[in-house]
Structures are given as structure tokens and as C-alpha cells.
């Protein structure tokens, strides 16, 4: 490191003279005065070291008077070496200068640690658009092991959880997951999800990340289909010296202290359906179906395991950088769930002024065990050909396998239920083995032709896939009751029909990106002109084949009594059912999508403090699909195309060095997912409802306005306050609809236009060893749509359904979201600790087709804790504890509750003001691990 520049200020001289002195000081950035955390301060003569704290301060105690060399080192900064004569209590301030000039330029030779918190704050400030950035350091310190859980700490972000309590999808500023894009290293990746374009974020292990960026306003060079925000997952970059990090941890989920983990052997699951194995004209017999994946083994308190390492270095005169990382996680999760399935149609109300009353057909009591195995690997090579040209090759493979057992007791409420504990009961064991993976390889180049002109390009191939082989549920039915003598009884368990379903889907993307930049100096101002574009060909292949097995009746025609899976006997009735459904099934489809985009943007600064960035982007979308459904089927095939012209303008007004004011306007779109369009009824994805597509769905167009005021006072401290306004044309939401038979399903639809506005506050403040960090977002959205009202017309006396307009927030939007963390950092003892709380206000989880009967997710607070301690200079021990409050996930209908007592009484209904429709409990989980850093 080069000794370049230093300044020392003598701030304070004490009057008393002692031979034992105390040196206090601060380390700051020479450019902007930011406090630098974790810089090494060395008293050379006496070999004493210390590290600057969260507010940049450091202390040496009991120092004898004399002349000392003080050395300060900080990655990415020039080292400082100075001599000071000490004979009293003194306070020093050291200013370090950066070894690179700007973050937005490529700095291969002197690598910044992008994973530092300091970098993150700085990048937020330098960003062209409104952004929040979480550093790898924050992620390490946080209680989170997947990206999804990290995200919920970002302002304006709330999380949708899976049935085992893991965060899966992000809702940004009240905008449903469908409006938010996911990028790896700035490149869009396809989703392995069968129904969604956005990637389920729980597939990313947190420890592969360099940082996580949430970009909330779009510039013309960014793809337009992210109205809520873009989550850019930036993976680790090659370092400028040898690094080696390793991490191993183990833990458990508390729920398995109370109940056994119950799972099946996923190795016996047949990956292909009989028709795939033997040809599509194969008539399967019942012997083609395995039974072993429906027999279950108990496991007491299974351990969770996490392991990972990353290794990186630079070779050939620093020209070639390499980093490789591998991450493995095996987690057992469990949950208990109560779910009351509403009847498609409520009970009628007595007049038009009253709301219809919800009724339930079934009460489900479910126990889940799932084992999730995540494997993440990543390799990045960069080659610095010469001072003008650099190339990089990035490859990642991510895999998430979930083996899940669900035991379900279905208390049928609509059939012969005399009271609690009596009536018809269906018991079901479900085996679900889902494999998801993403492969992405990106080849990028950067070329500086001359001082004024440069360009960069990317060629991307990605593949995402999901397999759901042999998904099925073994069911039996019996009746429980009380006989004439008051004795309880159960009728024999009778075997019911058994469906076995094979699904898989693959998405392949081929994309090319090109950006040209021209930056002349006009009137002493540097102006940046950029033009560029992208072309992407996307192809989706979807397969679904379902077999319906019928229980074989006894020879006298009586129904078969269920005596375990091994004894169960099935037949195909009619025999042709053995062909499966793939031959004529809208679930067997291919979907092609071509996206071409071009943009032009200009960025310049007026009078040194107003940065203007604006431009226009044109995106052309052309889609076509064909299913294996017969031509007589509505929506058997289709082609859809549209062109969007997107303007944007971003202003950043710098009030002073630490304060900015930002204003953005941009237009954005949201394309329906493939499965949103294809009219395929899919019962495998949602825990609760069958999902279907809607070929008449329109894509969403959004106008976005953003205003933000930022203060980066010093060090890690920051303060931001901002507001946003969005106008959505044709937002897409899911509503429960009646199927043509008597069932119900969830279907996406456009319900009109909506507005969404709100404000957010972000703050971080450090005081010595303590820090507080938090954010709060208020969001208000409104959409007016038709809702059914089922009532008795007082004039005719008839029951009728009419449609009335109702105002409501957008699905998934919470009015209030808040995060709060209390941080403790003792640099001397090497202790970092954090308690983090996430508050998610109530929001509509599911729409009802009826007025005031929407399903609301109740407000919740989740509390997590994490801590780490250094053991020597290379080793750290860390602990994470999640969901300390055992926060329930609850869904309610806001209507008076008639199910609390009496003949209609249902379990878990204990509030007369609302009706509970779902309650899931996950219990806390704990993790203890070691981290090694070379």
C-alpha cells in the first residue's frame, strides 16, 4: 500500500500530565468525512493494535509518554503512517483517502470490498436511482440464511412465506411479487417456478452474496418489468489477493422437540411418469406406481447443517482473477396448520345493506415436515486483457430440493356435522418431492475505446427447471359420531381415490446485451450519452401428466377398508385411465417469448449539484404458446404481442456533501407469467386452492413517481425519507372463482386501475458500540372492483347475486411495514450481535369474489437474533435464532364470527370480531456455527 496523504488534527489537549496516557481518535474518509469502521490502528513501537468501531472511533489506554509511529490500514484506502509525540490525553482524527476514485468505474487492480457495509451505504448514495443495498457483512451478521429472509430487512419490503415459514417472495412497497424482478449480477434470470416469472428467493443461500441491491426506480438502461423494484443479487467478485473463507454450522428447529420429523425416502420416487418412460401410448397398470414413497419414517430432532467456502485469488500479474464458492444447506422445517376452506358461495344476507356470511366446507388440520437441501456453486473469472479491455465469465448453479410430507385431517363441515368431534373425516398423507435448479452463465466484456467512448456487452445463457415427480395424496374417509347410548364411535377407514401427478417445467433464456457510452465534455461539463439494448429469447416447456387410481372394491362390491399403503389395492376405471392425461392437457405446453429492447439516455450535471438522467426505452414483447389440449378447447394456443414505450427522468440534487434530494419519474410494465395465461388447472402448487390461467389477461402498465431526501451523515449512519406514487393500469390479482363444476379455483384477472402511494423512512445511527437501524414504510393503494353480493331480495323474496363496486387495497399490500434492529459491536472483544424485528401490517392475502369477504393476513411481528464472536484473527463463532416469538401466520375474514360457540363451533375460533381461516405455526429455529477467514 502506498503512503500518500495524511492529515492530523490535534483536537484536544488535556491540562494534566501523566505518564500513563489515553489516546482517543477517529478514522474518517478524507473525501466525505465518513467514519470508517474496522480500520486497523497500530502503535508500531509497542506492537499494540486496535480497530475502529461503528462510529469510526478507537482508543489506546495506558500509553507511556513518548514518540510513536501510528499506522492506519483500511481496505480500499491508502495506508497512513505518521509520528506523534504523546505526553498527555490526546484526541486524534485521521483522514484516509481512497485508493480508487469511483465505485461506478471498474477497479480491477485495487479491489474494493463490495461486501462491506460501508460500500453499501456509499453505493446507495452514488446510485443513479433510488436504491437500498444490503452488504454481505450485514447478511453475515443478520439472522438470515437465505436471501429471502435478508430482504425483509430492507425498507419497503415485506415477505411472503411458504408453508414452512421460509420467506419466498418479496412484496416491494405494496407491490405484489409479480411486479418485482430478480437479477443475478445485473442479468435477468429465469425462474424454476412453474407459475411465476420471479425467482423464489429461498433458493439463494445468503453466504454466496457480495451484496443485495433493491433498486426502486428504473433508469432507461434497465428492463422495464419491475414496477415495485429490482432485486439484484450481486455474487462475490474475484479479490485482489488470496482469500479463503469457510463456514460450517449446525442447528435444529424447535418444533421437532415436540413432534417427530416424518418423511419418506425421496430416492424411491420415480422421476418419470409411466407415459414418459414407456411412450405416450403406453397403457399403465397399477403396478407401474411405487408405494414406497407413501410410507413414512419418523426421525427425532433432526439436525440442520450449513457448510460453505469461497476461495479466490489473482494471477498472472493481477490480470486473471478467480473466485469459486460452494454452499450447502440441509434444513428440516416443520409447521402445524389449521385451515378452514370457505364455501365458494357464502350464505345470503337478509338485505342489500348487509354482507353475505361466510360458510366453510372443511376444516383441515395439517402437520408438515420438510427437508430442504440447497446447493449453490459459483465461479467467476475476470481477465484484464489490457488497460482498456476486460472480460469476465460468470457461472452459477443453484439447486433446491424439497422433500415434504403433509399429514392432513380433513373435518368435513358441510356434511352431517352434528357438532364438534362428530361427522365425516378424511385423513390424507401427501408426499411431495420438488426439485428446482437454476443454471446461469454470463460472458461479459468491457472496452474503453478512448477517453470518450466505451462499451460493454453481455452474452447470457440461463436454464431454470423444476420437477415435481409422482406428487400424490393417499386418502381415506370415515365417520366419527356419538351413538344413541352416548358412546363415541368411528366407522372403518375406507380408501379413497389416489391421484398421481408428474409435472416438470424448464425455462431457457438466451440473451444478449449491448451498451454504448459516449462521454464528451461540453461547457466544462461531463455528459454521458448511452444507447443500448437487449434481445432475449425465452422458451418454456411444461409437462403435466396425471393418473387417477381407483380403490379396488371388495369382491362383494363393498368398499375397501384402508389398512396401510402396502395393503391398499387400486385399479384403473375405466382401463383407459391408465393412459394418463398428458395427451390432451393444457398443462402440456411450450411457450416462446421474444423480448427486444432499445434505449437512449443522457446523464449530465447542471451547476455541479443537479444531476439529470433521462431517456426513453422501447420494449417489444412477442409471445406464443401451444398446448396439447384439443383445438376445440378455448385458449388451446395463442399469440400475444405488444410494444411499450417507456420514458424516465431522474434528478439528483446535491444539497451538500452529505445530503441529496432525488426525484424520479419512470414508466414500467409487468408481463403476466406463462402460467397466468395458460388455461391449465393446477392443483399441485397452492396448498389451498387449484390455480388456473386466464388467456385474456392484459399486461400491467405503471407510472411511477419517487421523491427522496437522503442524509449520509458519517460512517454507517444514514437517514432517508421519501415518498412514492404509482398509477397502475390493469394490475393483475388473484381471485377465487367458481369452476364450471361445483368447485372453486384461483384465477388471475385484471380488476381495473389502481393507485399506490406511500412514504418511507430509513435510518441508521451508531454510537460507540451500539447501533440502531430501522425503516418504516407507509403504503396506501386503492382499487375499485366488482364484488358479488348474495342476498335475499326483500321484494321478490328470491335469493340473488348482484355485483357492486368495492374499494380496497391491492392484494398483498400492507399499509404499515417496519423493521427495527438493535446492533452491538465490540471490536476489541470481536463481538457482533443483533436483534432484529420485522413488523408486517395486515394485508389482503386472497381476494373473495364477494363484498367485504376478502381474506386478510393479520399483522405480525417476527423477532430474530444473531451474534458472532472472533476467536483469534481468523476464526469466528456465530449463532442465529429465528422466529423467537413463534409468530403465527394468520388469515382472517373481517366479519362477525358465528363459529365461536354453539352447534356451529369450530376449533381455534376465539375472537368474535373476525373469522379465522388459517393459522400456521413454525416455532423457533437455532443455528450455531464457525466461520474461518484467511
Amino acid at each position: 500500500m502506498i503512503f500518500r496523504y495524511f492529515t492530523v488534527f490535534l483536537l484536544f489537549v488535556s491540562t494534566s500530565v501523566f505518564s500513563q496516557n489515553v489516546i482517543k481518535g477517529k478514522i474518517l474518509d478524507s473525501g466525505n468525512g465518513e467514519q470508517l469502521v474496522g480500520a486497523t490502528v497500530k502503535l508500531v513501537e509497542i506492537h499494540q493494535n486496535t480497530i475502529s468501531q461503528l462510529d469510526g472511533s478507537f482508543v489506546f489506554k495506558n500509553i507511556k509518554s513518548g514518540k510513536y509511529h501510528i499506522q492506519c490500514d483500511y481496505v480500499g484506502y491508502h495506508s497512513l503512517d505518521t509520528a506523534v509525540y504523546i505526553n498527555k490525553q490526546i484526541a486524534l482524527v485521521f483522514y484516509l483517502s481512497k485508493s480508487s476514485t469511483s465505485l461506478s468505474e471498474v477497479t480491477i487492480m485495487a479491489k474494493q470490498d463490495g461486501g462491506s457495509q460501508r460500500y453499501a451505504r456509499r453505493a446507495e448514495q452514488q446510485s443513479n436511482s433510488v436504491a437500498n443495498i444490503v452488504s454481505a457483512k450485514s447478511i453475515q451478521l443478520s439472522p438470515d440464511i437465505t436471501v429471502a429472509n435478508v430482504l425483509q430487512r430492507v425498507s419497503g419490503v415485506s415477505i411472503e412465506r411458504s408453508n414452512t415459514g421460509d420467506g419466498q417472495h418479496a412484496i416491494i412497497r405494496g407491490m405484489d411479487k409479480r411486479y418485482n424482478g430478480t437479477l443475478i449480477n445485473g442479468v435477468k434470470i429465469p425462474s424454476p417456478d412453474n407459475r411465476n416469472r420471479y425467482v423464489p428467493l429461498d433458493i439463494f443461500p445468503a453466504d454466496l452474496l457480495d451484496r443485495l441491491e433493491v433498486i426502486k426506480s428504473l433508469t432507461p438502461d434497465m428492463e422495464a418489468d419491475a414496477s415495485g423494484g429490482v432485486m439484484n443479487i450481486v455474487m462475490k467478485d474475484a479479490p485482489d489477493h488470496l482469500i479463503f473463507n469457510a463456514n460450517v454450522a449446525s442447528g435444529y428447529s424447535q418444533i421437532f422437540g415436540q413432534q417427530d420429523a416424518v418423511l419418506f425416502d425421496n430416492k424411491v420416487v420415480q422421476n418419470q411418469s409411466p407415459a414418459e418412460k414407456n411412450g405416450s401410448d403406453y397403457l399403465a397398470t397399477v403396478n407401474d406406481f411405487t408405494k414406497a414413497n407413501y410410507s413414512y419414517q419418523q426421525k427425532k430432532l433432526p439436525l440442520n447443517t450449513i457448510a460453505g467456502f469461497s476461495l479466490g485469488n489473482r494471477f498472472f500479474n493481477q490480470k486473471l482473477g478467480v473466485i469459486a464458492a460452494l454452499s450447502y444447506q440441509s434444513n428440516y422445517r416443520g409447521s402445524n396448520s389449521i385451515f378452514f376452506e370457505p364455501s365458494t358461495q357464502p350464505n345470503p344476507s337478509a338485505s342489500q345493506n348487509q354482507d353475505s356470511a361466510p360458510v366453510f366446507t372443511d376444516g383441515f388440520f395439517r402437520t408438515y415436515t420438510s427437508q430442504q437441501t440447497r446447493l449453490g456453486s459459483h465461479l467467476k473469472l475476470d481477465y484484464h486483457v489490457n488497460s482498456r479491455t476486460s472480460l469476465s465469465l460468470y457461472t452459477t448453479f443453484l439447486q433446491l430440493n424439497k422433500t415434504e410430507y403433509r399429514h392432513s385431517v380433513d373435518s368435513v363441515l358441510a356434511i352431517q356435522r352434528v357438532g364438534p368431534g362428530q361427522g365425516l373425516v378424511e385423513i390424507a398423507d401427501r408426499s411431495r418431492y420438488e426439485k428446482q435448479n437454476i443454471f446461469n452463465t454470463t460472458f461479459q466484456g468491457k472496452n474503453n475505446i478512448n477517453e470518450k467512448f466505451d462499451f460493454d456487452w453481455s452474452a447470457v445463457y440461463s436454464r431454470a427447471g423444476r420437477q415435481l415427480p409422482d406428487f400424490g395424496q393417499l386418502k381415506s374417509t370415515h365417520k366419527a359420531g356419538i351413538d344413541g347410548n352416548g358412546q363415541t364411535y368411528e366407522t372403518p377407514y375406507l380408501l379413497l381415490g389416489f391421484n398421481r401427478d408428474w409435472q416438470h417445467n424448464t425455462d431457457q433464456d438466451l440473451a444478449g446485451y449491448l451498451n454504448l457510452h459516449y462521454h464528451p465534455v461540453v461547457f466544462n461539463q461531463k455528459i454521458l450519452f448511452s444507447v443500448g439494448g437487449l434481445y432475449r429469447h425465452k422458451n418454456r416447456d411444461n409437462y403435466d401428466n396425471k393418473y387417477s387410481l381407483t380403490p379396488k372394491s371388495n369382491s362383494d362390491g363393498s368398499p375397501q377398508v384402508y389398512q396401510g399403503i402396502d395393503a391398499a389395492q387400486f385399479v384403473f376405471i375405466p382401463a383407459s385411465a391408465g393412459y394418463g392425461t398428458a395427451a390432451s392437457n393444457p398443462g402440456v405446453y411450450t411457450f416462446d417469448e421474444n423480448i427486444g429492447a432499445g434505449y437512449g439516455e443522457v446523464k449530465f450535471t447542471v451547476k455541479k449539484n443537479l444531476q439529470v438522467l433521462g431517456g426513453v426505452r422501447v420494449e417489444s414483447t412477442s409471445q406464443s404458446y401451444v398446448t396439447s389440449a384439443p383445438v376445440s378447447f378455448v385458449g388451446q394456443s395463442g399469440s400475444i404481442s405488444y410494444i411499450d414505450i417507456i420514458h424516465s427522468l431522474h434528478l439528483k440534487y446535491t444539497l451538500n456533501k452529505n445530503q441529496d434530494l432525488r426525484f424520479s419519474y419512470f414508466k414500467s410494465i409487468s408481463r403476466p407469467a406463462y402460467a397466468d395465461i395458460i388455461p391449465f388447472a393446477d392443483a399441485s402448487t397452492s396448498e389451498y386452492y387449484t390455480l388456473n390461467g386466464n388467456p385474456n389477461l392484459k399486461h400491467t402498465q405503471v407510472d411511477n413517481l419517487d421523491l427522496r431526501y437522503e442524509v449520509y451523515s458519517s460512517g454507517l449512519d444514514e437517514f432517508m425519507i421519501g415518498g412514492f406514487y404509482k398509477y397502475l393500469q390493469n394490475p393483475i390479482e388473484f381471485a377465487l372463482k367458481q369452476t364450471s363444476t361445483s368447485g372453486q379455483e384461483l384465477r388471475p384477472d385484471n380488476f381495473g386501475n389502481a393507485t399506490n402511494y406511500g412514504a418511507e423512512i430509513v435510518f441508521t445511527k451508531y454510537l460507540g458500540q451500539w447501533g440502531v437501524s430501522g425503516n418504516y414504510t407507509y403504503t396506501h393503494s386503492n382499487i375499485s372492483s366488482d364484488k358479488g353480493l348474495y342476498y335475499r331480495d326483500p321484494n321478490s323474496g328470491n335469493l340473488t347475486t348482484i355485483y357492486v363496486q368495492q374499494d380496497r387495497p391491492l392484494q398483498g399490500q400492507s399499509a404499515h411495514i417496519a423493521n427495527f434492529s438493535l446492533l452491538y459491536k465490540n471490536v476489541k472483544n470481536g463481538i457482533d450481535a443483533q436483534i432484529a424485528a420485522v413488523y408486517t401490517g395486515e394485508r389482503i392475502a386472497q381476494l373473495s369474489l364477494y363484498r367485504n369477504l376478502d381474506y386478510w393476513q393479520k399483522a405480525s411481528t417476527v423477532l430474530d437474533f444473531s451474534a458472532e464472536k472472533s476467536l483469534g484473527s481468523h476464526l469466528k463463532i456465530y449463532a442465529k435464532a429465528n422466529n423467537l416469538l413463534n409468530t403465527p401466520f394468520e388469515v382472517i375474514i373481517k366479519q362477525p364470527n358465528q363459529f365461536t360457540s354453539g352447534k356451529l363451533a369450530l376449533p381455534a375460533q376465539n375472537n368474535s370480531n373476525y373469522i379465522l381461516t388459517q393459522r400456521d405455526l413454525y416455532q423457533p429455529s437455532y443455528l450455531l456455527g464457525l466461520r474461518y477467514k484467511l
Partner: protein
Amino acid sequence: MKIKSLSLMFLTVGAMIIASCSKKENAQISTPPLQVGATVSDAAPLTGSIKGTMLTGKIYTISGDVTINEGDTLLIQKGVTVNMTNNADIIVKGTLLSLGTKDQPNYLTVKNVTKTSDPNVNPADDPAYQGLWTGINCDVTCKLLVLKWTHIEYGGGIYSNPPVAGTKAGDNSFVILFQNVDGVFVMEDSWVYGSIDDPIRLKGGKFNLMRNTFEKCGFTGGDVMNAKSGSVGNMAYNLIIGSATTGTKASNKGGTPVQSNVNMYNNTYVNSGYRRVESGRGGSINYEEGAKGQAYNNLIVDCRFGFRVVNDPLADTLNLKYGYTYNYNSTVETANEIYPTGYITKPQPTDVPVPSTFLPAGYQLGAIYDGTSVVGKNDPLFVNYPLPQSNFKKIAAVGNYDFHLSANSPCAGKGNTTLLTPLNVVPVDPNFGSSEITPPGKDIGAFQLDGSGNHH
């Protein structure tokens, strides 16, 4: 004024004279058989779009899905046999008329399949429950479906091609699906033999389902006549034997602006509800979820459940009137379910057996009671069907039995003919509507001692 009222009087008298005269005379004057459009050729198996007339005496084969397009009509004259092959279905976007007669009924059937009346054949091996073709599927555009004196056999299979909106591959088809709230569906004097699921599913429509016989309908589930929201009409004088679940069912589920209103009267329900594996789903009459209507003079023999009025979701009990239900039970198992437990059927003093003779004092609706005292009581005295019957769970076809009433049947004359007026929602027409909307009869059940009612 005087002249006007005078001439009106003359006219009225004249009309009365003419009317009384013609009543005495029975003239049978031939009219040319109805024909629409071109003749359908029987030279080759049929598939694709279809319209025109199928001629008397001919035998047709349908080898692939056929569609009667919107605006088109397919007329099947009397005495036509249509053989269904290849799991095909009939899609009706326009109009379908099958005008069989008592002497020359029509057949929609499958060749080379033998019916069995042996009650000991395992349903899993009985072709009645195999679903060998995939039904008559009316789309929302179908304005008129008329089926008279038509045998419909072995239908209701599993769709290989989902034919109309809302159906999907792998689902059970219905023998007849009708789903136009403003359309007209008439099915009279016909027979349905076998199906996997519901033989008749109504998702709205004006209908008259009268004087039909249903045997072996539904394999392990399925209601014989299942009417959802928007369905208005009569289900009367039907004989239903051995159905998987309910015989006649009305629900207002489905959210159309028109409330389901179904009259169910003078039906005979025998041995129904046993192939449904799950308990508690029904066996004879069922009103649920906002449906209204009236039900009288029904005869229920050895069905798994009696008259069922569902509380949750609630039938439109304010507009539901019923009574004169006649129950016969060979065993206590079904005698305990004359008023099914867990529901809200109100025992009516006009019912047989009279509720006060066997229900406990202070009986609560849906409560468990002991029906032992009425087991084997009130034999309706069918012409040829032994009661009490020990094999009632398995006898699912008429075969050689005869469910007409003997002259000395206690059902004779016990019906009520005044409380209910049939819903006249379909046109009365020999070709394009109902031949006769028969009002309630004085004898309980489908067969009237004076020869009216069910003509089978």
C-alpha cells in the same frame, strides 16, 4: 256495448261446444315427420361438425367428438340408434332434438356391451360404471335440448378431450351437461343407464325432467339430477334405482342472478346412495345452499338417506315446502336416517311413517333417533319387488322387477294434488318442448294407478 258483450257470449258458448265435441273424438291424422336441414348420412362414422336430420330406422356411428354449432340443429327422428365409439362426445352449441316415441325409442348407446341385472356383479366390473363415451355436453350457447323416449347408455366417461368451457382432461364427464340459464332442457320418458359421475348436471337452465327412469347412475359418486344456481323447473315422475348418491338435488351454488327453484314430486327412489364411499352425502332428495322449491308425493325405499335439507350452507328454507314423503326401510340402518342426522329436515305430519309415531318427544332437527319401530313397516306393495329386501345395497337395475303400485298399495290416493303447481318454464310442444307437464298425482311415487305419470 250490448252487441259487444253479446257476441263475446256467443263466442264463448261456441268455443265451449267445439271444445266438448272434440274431446270425444280421437283423430290420428298423419303429419310428415319433422325434418330439419339435410339428411345425416349413415354411410360412414361421424366426427366433427354435425347438423341436419338422422332418419328413422337408421343406425349411426359417432367415432370422434361431434359438434352441433351455434345456430345449427341436429334432429334425431324416432327409431334411430346412435352407436358411440372412441370415448367420443356430443358437443351442443346449437340445438339437439331426439324425438323417440314409446313404440320407436331412440338409442344413444355402445355396441356389443351386455347389461347385467345380477346384483352380485362387482360394480368395478360392471360396464355400466365404465363410462364408455363422454356425454352430451351443452355449451353456454345451447338454447334447446329436447330428449324424448331416448335410451342413453354407458355415457359419462372420463374426458380425453375437454369439450366445452370449464371441462378438463381427466375429469369425469356428465351424461348430460346443460349450462345456459336462458336455455331450455326437456327430458321426458327417457332412460339413463350407467355413468361414472352425475348423469345430469344443470348449471342453470329452464327444464322439465319428467317420467324418466335412471338405473345404475354414478360409480362411487354422482347425483342423478344435480341442479346448480340458475336452474328452474320440475323433476317429477322419475324412477331412480341404485344411484351412487342423491337422486334429485338442488343447490343455488354458482352465483347466477337466478335462484335455483326446483320442484321434486312423485318420484320413486329405490336403493340409492350406497356406492358413495364417503358417508353422509345423500341418497334420495336433497335441497342445499340457497335452493328453493317444493317437494311432495315422493316414495323413498331403502335409500341410504331420506329427504335431506342442508343447513350449512343453508337451503332457502323460507321458500322450501315439502311433505307427503313416503319412506320404506328394510333395516334400522336406513330407518335411522329417514330424517338424516346432522341436517335440518323438518318431519311433516303428512309423511309416512307419521313422525309422531316413532320420533322421540322433543326431537331436535338432525338429532339421532331410534328408527327400529318402523323397520319393515308401510310396504308400498310394488307389483313385483320383494320387501323387506336384504340385498338393497346391490340391486341397482329394474331388470324383471316392476315398481308400479299394486291396486291395494297404501301409497294409492295418499298424494296431494293441490299444494304444488308445476313450474311452466318450458314450452309445451310435440317437437320443441315438453309433451306434457304432468301435475302432481294422487298416488305417491312415479307410477299412477290410472296409468298416468311414468309410462315405462
